[in-house]
């Protein structure tokens, strides 16, 4: 297992390095990307197959050696039931992005592939690292390639969006770093496993650290009201950028809560949880309302992410096993569903030259039946229909809020639950209104010359559809993995 984890990081790194060798590459760049990310995906699947599911609660495949001895920073990797699904999701989404690129050759393909491979390295590293500073390093590695992806391959307003993205998230990271260093100053160690087992910090120090770390992570998640970088970044980013941004990058923020903030600072978490919950449900309703009046399809999906991440944060805020399970489930489900949504919206934008709801025309189900049906499917999944992946995260988060952890104010969380439930109705409302505008109605807008989903596109999308169905119909596939991990994280027997 340890070898696999190292290979998981080494392959994208070496792949990116290989692209630095000068020479004509032409169309082969994307194929090279498919090859490398395919290998990474295969390795992640191999890691999932050798993973000991009976012991999903403890860290497996420990890799641990000194990296910067002077600072006590260690190169410490490991995987457990919390990180395994995210690692596989990351590898899968990256591979699917490359597959999609095969049908949509970008300009300056070599640089694009290079950026995406670096991005993959950072994302995987974030989910694998068990050292606070290493975590932070990978967390930051992601920003640079994403900045370039938006700034070079983005839409007309890409410059401003990219600046906003990098400045906003860097600012968040600075706060996060302060929090991490504060933990280090208080305890003298950066080892997440040890910190999570011992909780050596005092209550007030924990609260301080939680606020700092939580703020840093909340920018990335994003939590209301720190979300405004997201719609701009999504609107301007190229399709695969949006997919990875929504599918994986946002998860890094929430993963930080599950891996760093809550287990290491339980008392801080308990003190801040009501605030976190309040901001989460505000995000749910606010995101849904913002979507209801949105004119741009990409912006709409971006705001829907704010709402969905609200459910994830609400799950965390309950500090119960079921709530954190909900958050982790919601994470993966949102990655799959919103990834698919951005693929589809990207395909629409590419065909119509716009993502504006009024200019897209109506009757998509008639003009492009495949794209239209898949869009309907993805929206229905995203609004949390039972039997599809999105449901379990939402339902369990609400269930967690019904009976939050001991010590948390129950009436407050009951209020959160009710607001969250109404937010779910609003979520359904905006998705259905959008579907009605775009997919229903007389055949209008750009004519019949448009091509329906191509073979390459379907290859990239079908795996997501299948997984959404599988996780919807068989929730044990994921819950069986996360439940033991969550229980050991919360110290529940």
């Amino acid at each position, binding site marked *: 297992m340890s070898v696999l984890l190292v290979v998981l990081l080494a392959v994208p790194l070496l792949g990116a390095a290989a692209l630095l060798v000068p020479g004509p590459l032409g169309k082969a760049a994307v194929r090279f990307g498919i090859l490398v990310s395919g290998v990474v995906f295969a390795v992640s699947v191999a890691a999932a197959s050798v993973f000991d599911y009976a012991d999903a609660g403890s860290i497996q495949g420990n890799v641990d050696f000194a990296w910067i001895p002077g600072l006590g920073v260690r190169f410490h990797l490991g995987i457990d039931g919390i990180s395994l699904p995210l690692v596989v999701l990351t590898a899968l989404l990256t591979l699917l992005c490359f597959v999609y690129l095969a049908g949509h050759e970008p300009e300056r393909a070599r640089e694009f592939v290079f950026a995406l491979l670096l991005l993959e390295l950072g994302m995987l590293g974030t989910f694998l690292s068990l050292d606070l500073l290493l975590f932070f390093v990978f967390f930051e590695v992601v920003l640079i390639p994403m900045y370039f992806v938006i700034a070079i391959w983005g839409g007309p307003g890409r410059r401003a969006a990219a600046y906003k993205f990098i400045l906003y998230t860097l600012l968040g990271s600075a706060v996060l770093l302060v929090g991490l260093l504060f933990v280090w100053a208080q305890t003298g160690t950066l080892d997440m496993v040890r910190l999570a087992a011992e909780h050596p910090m005092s209550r007030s120090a924990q609260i301080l650290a939680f606020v700092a770390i939580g703020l840093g992570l909340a920018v990335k998640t994003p939590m209301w009201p720190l979300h405004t970088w997201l719609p701009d970044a999504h609107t301007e980013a190229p399709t695969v950028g949006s997919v990875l941004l929504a599918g994986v990058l946002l998860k890094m923020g929430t993963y930080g809560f599950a891996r760093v903030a809550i287990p290491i600072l339980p008392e801080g978490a308990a003190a801040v949880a009501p605030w976190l919950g309040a901001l989460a449900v505000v995000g749910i309703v*606010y995101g849904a309302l913002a979507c209801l*009046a949105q004119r741009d399809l990409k912006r709409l999906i971006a705001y829907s992410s704010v709402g969905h991440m609200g459910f994830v944060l609400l799950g965390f805020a309950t500090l119960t096993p079921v709530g954190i399970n909900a958050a982790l489930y919601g994470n993966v489900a949102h990655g799959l569903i919103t990834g698919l949504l951005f693929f589809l919206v990207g395909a629409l934008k590419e065909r119509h030259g716009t993502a504006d709801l009024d200019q897209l025309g109506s009757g998509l189900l008639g003009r492009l039946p495949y794209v239209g049906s898949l869009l309907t499917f993805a929206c229905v999944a995203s609004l949390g229909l039972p039997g599809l992946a999105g449901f379990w995260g939402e339902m369990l988060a609400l269930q*967690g809020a019904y009976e939050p952890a001991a010590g948390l104010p129950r009436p407050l969380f009951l209020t959160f639950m009710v607001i969250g439930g109404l937010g779910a*109705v609003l979520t359904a409302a905006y998705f259905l209104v959008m579907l009605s505008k775009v997919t229903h109605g007389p055949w209008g807008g750009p004519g019949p010359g448009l091509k329906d989903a191509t073979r390459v596109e379907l290859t990239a999308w079908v795996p997501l559809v299948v997984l959404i169905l599988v996780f919807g119909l068989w929730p*044990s596939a994921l819950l069986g993995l*996360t439940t033991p991990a969550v229980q050991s994280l919360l110290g529940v027997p």
Partner: protein
Amino acid sequence: MIAALIVVLPFAGALLGLLLSRYPHGRSPAENLAANKRAAWFGVVPTALSAALIGWLAWENTPSTNVLTVIDTGGISITVGLEVTELSVLTAMLVGVVALAVQVYSVGYMRGESRYPSFSAFISLFTSAMLLVVFAADLMVLYVGWEIMGLCSYLLVGHWWEERANSRAAIKAFLVTRLGDVGFLFGIFVLGFAADSFRISDILAADIPQSTLVLATLLLLAGVAGKSAQVPLHTWLPDAMAGPTPISALIHAATMVAAGIFVVARLYVLFPQPTLDVLGVAAAIGMLGAALAAFAQNDLKRVLAYSTISQLAYMAAALAGGARDAAVFHLVTHGAFKALLFLCAGAVIHHVGSNLLHHMGGLRRSMPVTFWTMTIGYAALIGLPPASGFFSKDAILYGLERSTSPIQLLLYGSALLTVGVTGAYATRAWLMTFFGTGKIQALPEPAPGTAHIFDGREAPPSMLWPLGVLAVPALLLGFTDVGEFHLAPAVTALVVALLGAAFVYVVWRGSPERDPARLLGAFRDPCEQAFYVDRLYAALFVRPVLALARGVVRTDDGVVDGAVRGSGRATVGLSGLLRHLQNGNAQLYVTGVLAGVLLIAVGAVMLG
């Protein structure tokens, strides 16, 4: 095991129908025809097998429970299992038979429709979901089926999505029921946490305090009112008639709307008196109001839709009055005769090319089979002997007469009045459809959203057979429970119903060309508009939410993001101020250094 097969078979049919009907993917007329043929097989065969297996279960008649797996969620675990009870087999029987009839009927009704494959697949998916609700051993599993039904309803109501009105109706159907379902989910939470299990058998056996039960069941009622179209969440059902008629028969008359009543019956012991009283008041208002609305409608399907609301309210009233068995009995007979009525209405609409009663008339000679089967359906609806509705209505009235409920008088009075109005509106629709002079005008091209126009005399056999098959239970189902028959309430109801019918007949006889709805006088418009509830909701909920949404977008851009951009500008501004210090003027720098030295010196002297 059998129950699992019953649920999974239609689901498999739906998947196959969606994926394989159109293989290989051509869209020429010939390929469309081939796809429709394949889809018909995928639709009919699994449903038929499922129905047969339900028959076997009914014949075997042994309650059983099968647990597939238990999902550990970290909180209360979810038991994925199916439970076969007497009630579930009875309801499943209804679902299976009606679904099969509708699948066969759709083959003819949707002939030549290029989207028939997805249509029949969604019917299969719906059938599977409804059967899951019926057999679920766990409330969470039940909820899964419950919501999937809502989705199918959305997809099928919006089947002719080219028409904006249909699309709006589909959204409304989904959203109104979903609003209720949020309450339903919370009700499940309350029950689940009180019993520490979501398993229905555990919850029924658990000792739950009365106050908790009242709260939980009131929350459940929200979902029940949504699905079963009860006041105040009934407004979606009449609009849902925009869907193809087979769907109205299956989902919006016979099965899905009955799911709410089914759930109350399934969990009946949990329902304390206060909750039942709330249910009773809603039912009493709903049954009379909907019956009056039905009397004033001009669209045949909307007549039947309001009639459905009214009849479902009968069942709810029976439940509220303590007559659970009567409610279930009426659920089954109503399922049979209302599905029959809708399918007949579909045949009529198919023939006439319009939904409106004004365009119909004199059809009894050109459509004899439809005429006789629909007459049976109306007889059952009015409650004329020997049709099934006569017996089930009698059982309900008997139950309400004897009820110990504090609102017994309201329930009984409302039910009896409604019997009269039912007689009136059913007679009106019957007379306006089949009697008088024919007014069919052949439209050159059917608008999207209307069925095709047939020049033939009767509907095709694939549509007539289901009518014949459903007419049998609609006529005879009452005799299965004849031992419970009570003469006095039956005679009362019959007299009242005949009074209503006779009144309309006399008015109609006076001038057959005119609509008997004029009887209502000034009251006609409110009835036709269903007492303006839709407008009220639009003003109270829809418009404020939309205004709020626009406000949020403005706030997001102006305030939340404005603060971000503002901080960016402030930073640039501040650095602009600082920049003045770094202006490259050496004199200024030296002055600064000297001033600093001076300050430090002064400080050192003062403090030192």
